[in-house]
């Protein structure tokens, strides 16, 4: 054992001395032989398949942002959900928002081509349908969506519908982390319309606003029940139409629901 140690030391010392030779690196390196075979020319998709590596792969996500019961009079169920499928640049975007009160339903459904245009913003070009108990109404939609400075999610969409009706919808939300799993989310949505639509309790101009504050607990990232409050306010003609229909144009309610995605 002792002699082995001496040999090791001697080698180490020799190595150090050896190391002083400046071109040792050059002497130790042996360039490889050229390859005997080469892979055939192939298109990107064949190569991606062979490599098992495809940076154009498409993914999808389904998000139930809000699936909630509201302590209104009478109580109601409200939902907001979205889904996307596509690559890094272009995606198919589907979104729905609506409510169910007593036996009456009203919902907004949108489908759009989501295209990223800058580091934080994408454009959405698509269609919107308002469906439910009233006759279905169609719109063409153009919007921008993205992440504003401060990690504020923002969506602004303009609509043009049958007979030249116009509408504008703005929505924004922010996640405030109380802990790694307990998240307080303020959210704001504002709707404006170009003209009256009494059947749907819509008045021209700034029509309605919803401000919510929801506290969710992420048992998993994908599964988070929440409690919160929601303030709905109608303005101008919208408020009058609502009052005429026996609804309160200014309403605060408790909400309980689930945020889930996969």
């Amino acid at each position, binding site marked *: 054992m002792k002699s082995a140690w001496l040999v090791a030391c001697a080698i180490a010392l020799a190595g150090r001395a050896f190391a002083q030779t400046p071109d040792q690196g*050059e002497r130790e*390196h042996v360039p490889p032989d050229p390859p005997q075979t080469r892979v055939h020319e192939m298109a990107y998709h064949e190569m991606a398949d062979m490599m098992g590596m495809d940076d154009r792969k498409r993914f999808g996500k389904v998000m139930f942002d809000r699936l909630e019961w509201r302590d209104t009079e009478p109580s109601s169920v409200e939902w907001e959900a979205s889904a996307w499928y596509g690559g890094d640049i272009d995606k198919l975007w589907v979104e729905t928002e609506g409510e169910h009160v007593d036996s009456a339903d009203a919902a907004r459904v949108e489908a759009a081509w989501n295209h*990223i245009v800058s580091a934080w913003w994408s454009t959405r070009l698509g269609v919107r349908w308002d469906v439910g108990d009233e006759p279905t109404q169609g719109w063409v939609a153009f919007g921008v969506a993205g992440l504003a400075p401060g990690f504020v999610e923002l969506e602004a969409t303009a609509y043009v519908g049958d007979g030249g009706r116009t509408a504008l919808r703005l929505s924004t939300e922010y996640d405030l982390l109380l802990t790694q799993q307990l998240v307080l989310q303020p959210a704001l949505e504002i709707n404006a319309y170009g003209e009256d639509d009494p059947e749907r309790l819509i008045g021209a101009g700034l029509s309605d606003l919803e401000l919510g504050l929801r506290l969710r607990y992420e048992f998993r990232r994908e599964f988070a029940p929440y409690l919160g409050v929601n303030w709905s306010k109608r303005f101008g003609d919208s408020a009058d139409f609502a009052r005429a229909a026996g609804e309160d144009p200014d309403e605060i309610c408790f909400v309980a629901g689930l945020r889930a995605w996969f």
Partner: protein
Amino acid sequence: MCAKQETSSRADDSHASSEMTNHEIRCMAHESARIGMQTMDRFKPFGRRRFVQGLAGGALLLAQGRGRLLAASNSPSELTGPDFHLTIDELPVNYTGAARRAVAINGQVPAPLLRMRQGDVVTIRVTNNLREQTSIHWHGFILPADMDGVPGLSFNGIAPGTTFTYRFKVNQSGTYWYHSHSRFQEQVGLYGPIIVERRGGERHGADREHTLLFSDWTDHDPEHIYATLKRQSDYYNFGKRTFGDFLADVRKQGFSKAAADRRMWGGMRMNPTDLADVSAYAYTYLLNGATPATNWTGLFKPGERVRLRLINGSSMSFFDVRIPGLKLTVVATDGQDVEPVTVDELRIGTAEVYDVVVTPGDAAYTIFAQSMDRSGYARGTLAPRAGMTAEVPAMDTRALLTMNDMGMHHEGMDHSSMDMSAMPKANHAPAEYGPIVDMRTDMPNTRLDDPGVGLRDNGRRVLTYADLATLGGPIDRRAAAREVELHLTGHMERYIWSFNGQKFSDAEPLRFTHNERLRIVLVNDTMMTHPIHLHGMWSELTDMAGSFVARKHTVVVQPGQRLSYEVTADALGSWAYHCHLLYHMEAGMFREVVVA
């Protein structure tokens, strides 16, 4: 033809003592699990302590097909060349209490250690028993392009049910490793160590050696992890700043400073806690295939010089490695001997290799390898006798990235004292202003003596690249005739990664002229630390003045850093060039290099 399979014992009997019985491992695991518990309370979500610690008692591996029960081996078993036969199969494993399937070589995770001799022509037959294509890449080997094992570039991959024969001359020596280059097979177990014995004996002698292969096991399907990162890129980050942290900062720094800090990060839509894309939420960190609870143990005789061959075979993790009570004398990196340098701790990037020599006394020592984001650790023990353990230290607190890490010296810097004209000018490619890049570094750091985020001023002597000096100098003393500047780019929130703002699928290959000596300048325009690996040719790291520092196969570039290395393009053919974080590579941080 068939390689001789040995257990971990080598010819000399002192080495054979490193093999322990499974009973001994289990006894130690119970003790170590108890110790480990105390340090793990910072990562409580979802009651996943056992997940991080692993299953005490060791993972029992059921060798598929043969139906026999194999205990997780204490040391990787060893095959000695020049002829090897490797068989790739699925393998049922259980590291955390959940039954999963790994991809294994010869029924082992990690794959067996391959021992070669410098100067030999090795023949490695690889049989694929999977239902999908596979491949093996010899990481850090200088060999003909068709032997490099990258499907689509080097060869067509190894189809199910077929055998591919690799044959090449091993002209180099040192510690290396091998892994699959197909999809996510590396994540699920297809990696192993290689030792090439130097002709004429090691420069830095030792009485004994152990190979320490670090990796990151996950019970999740890697396809699911990748899809999850695309859906919510901060999914695995449980170290984000909370409202409570803000209040604490207000108390410490005052409201205006704390708010200004939030405004700055928020304004950039960047997260200073983004240290690892995948954390211990999904990973159980392994040392030689053993969980922290299983506690891999390497034996020694007190007073011996023990050479430890550290290999980071993980898919996504950086480890900060230390052995409390022992100095680490670094004698090689990436298989290349260096001027010995003694430190307390080193950060080993994904795919990097370091050889260190330690001289332990008559006591047990904990090998402690914290993940860079401090979400978990790999752990083992060096001990003179089986069954001994040492205290497992608490993990360090998680560090925050700073504006300096981003190459944006916004705050707290006195610009007047700096000669701005001396700063290297950022030179961004047009595509970097496109939608798949979320930041650009305008004032990159060029220092090599920065140990990196989370290791600065921690009271320990931490290795930096500035400490490295590869013996023998560069392989080519010609000055670089041209310069290729590449920026490491990405979009964290959208989880897109690229070079110069172009994903692999959108980029033309980089073309090197045969036998030219060129300089590659890397500028990290992201907030993550990227290990960049060029296949087939050495990356000879230089300092700011252009002087040779170290010969490497994988170069770690810190956030906001600019560094350069020289390459001799003496290897004809098509080669892979990529970030060795597996999901970054998959997401586009990959280029083909053509030498012609």
